[in-house]
């Protein structure tokens, strides 16, 4: 991918080496963010499942929050 980089007031096209460095950083960030979102999704699924089970036991949301909130 082409990148423009700025050094103080000078804006120019990145060299191949500079572009590879930026792409490398971005690839890692993208992978980490995707993993983070998956973990968050997993947590939400487990959380909602637990809340539903507690509600089936007759607990109100207020009672559940009083214990775990």
């Amino acid at each position: 991918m082409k990148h423009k980089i700025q050094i103080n007031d000078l804006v120019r096209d990145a060299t191949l080496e500079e572009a590879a460095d930026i792409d490398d950083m971005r690839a890692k960030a993208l992978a980490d963010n995707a993993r983070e979102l998956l973990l968050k999704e997993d947590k939400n699924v487990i959380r909602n499942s637990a809340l539903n089970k507690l509600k089936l036991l007759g607990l109100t949301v207020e009672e559940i929050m009083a214990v775990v909130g």
Partner: protein
Amino acid sequence: MTDRGQFSQSVAYRRAMNNPIATAPGLELITTQVIGTAVSSVQVTSCFSASYDIYRVIVGGNGTSSADADLQLRIGSLTSGYNGGQFSTDFNTAGTVNGRAFISDSSFRFAGFCGTGRFIFNVDIINPFLAQRTFVSAFNNFQFTANGFGMMGGEQTSASSSTGFDIRPSSGTITGGTIRVYGYKN
């Protein structure tokens, strides 16, 4: 006004007028840099020196970006040895705390945030010029994957001396905004 009040006022006035330490600013502006159009990286050089140990880098103005992204901070030309972590509180879930970390990375990963019409970068950098580890505290940044504002702290483990830094979005490009670099008076 009582005589005692007049005396106190007089002492305070004379202290302010005659003592330069009492009136000198604690933060001194070193340089400013306007971010160009659609750049993937912006580098500021020759801003760290022996004049200051600690710096504040803050971006104001109309900074924006082409995508929601973390802003990554690299000290000088150091491409490894960055450790740190961020915590944030999710405002969609009444304050659920989320955290993320990085170790032996190629930059400080969560130093700020950029999005459409949003640009948050407010970082203290401790000892970048001294030949020892560099530490950062990033205030009020945004963990966009978790809808939360928070903070990041980290260290650069190299004992190298650096004279500048660069800021990069983790995706997309950034435009506008003014980087201001201040030195904390030694």
